[in-house]
């Protein structure tokens, strides 16, 4: 009932993981076109080992976002990702729903 006690909140998990001394990256949906499964503002939190929580799509592009997030953790540089049917990666990791999304990935430092 109380969202404050929502331990599934990726932002709370990100803070908790940082407190444990883990490397953490945060991915955020910043733009969507067409039928995107997760709304703008949705988060996926990833640690240096590839553990993750939350989602930026219905599960279609999470694998690719996690791989990119590991690079972002390594370099410290934020990155903008785009997924969708128009993208050449669509065959591999495209959104099955036909929508397009832009995802911002940054390191929590």
């Amino acid at each position, binding site marked *: *009932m109380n*969202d*404050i006690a929502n331990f599934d*909140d990726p*932002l*709370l998990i*990100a*803070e908790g993981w*940082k407190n444990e001394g883990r490397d953490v990256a*945060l991915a*955020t949906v*910043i*733009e969507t076109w067409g039928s995107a499964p997760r*709304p*703008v*503002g949705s988060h996926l939190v990833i640690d240096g080992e590839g553990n993750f929580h939350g989602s930026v799509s219905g599960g279609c592009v999470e694998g690719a976002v996690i791989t990119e997030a590991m690079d972002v953790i390594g370099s410290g540089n*934020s990155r*903008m990702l785009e997924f969708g049917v128009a993208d050449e990666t669509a065959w591999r990791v495209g959104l099955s729903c036909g929508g397009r999304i832009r995802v*911002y990935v*940054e*390191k*929590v*430092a």
Partner: protein
Amino acid sequence: MRIETLKQLNEAKRARRAAILVTDLATSEDRLALEGETLAGVSPDTLTKAFLSGKSGLVEDEGRSFFLNVHVPPPRIVVIGAVHISQALAAMAPAAGFDLEIIDPRTAFATPERFSGVKLTADWPEDVLKDNPLDAFTALVAVTHDPKIDDYPLVSALKTGCFYIGALGSRKTHAKRVERLKEAGCTDAQIARISAPIGLDIGASTPGEIAVAILGDIIQALRKRAIGAGT
């Protein structure tokens, strides 16, 4: 994202305060604006619109591109009185995105049979609100007609700044209520915030129609609230 900003944001969410995380996409710089605050480089209008709509998105301000992630606490409705209107309101509120709970110490009214699936507490408001206080993202709806039950939560709602406060009763009943609230230390400006007669003036007649009028009134109060520095 800086860990300090993340901690501030989580703290605001914990305290049920509205906040916007503003990220400059060119520099990765992130800043937090609490409702009523301003940020250099971002127009107050932009922040106000985002707080009112609750929608996250990209904005362009003076040639810079920002991402605004808007965190507004889930609004809730606390109803004082397990009456017929409350039954209708409890059915409608979730569809409009509100959590709802009902408090009524009269056990004859507050029966699970009449409020299946609704959070219902058969206890005095002063006892219930002690553990679960009202706040700026709570609407208080007092519909028992009984000053012994309604008055305490009304005073509490005025003091905590609930975004909506409504009280059922005729103009005559309300005039007497105003006198009691003044004696309890409420100012005229505070008392003027009470919607009484309760609900939008749509000529509502049945309990279901009155519930619609109240819910419309609540939505208007939430979506048109004064944002402070941004307005």
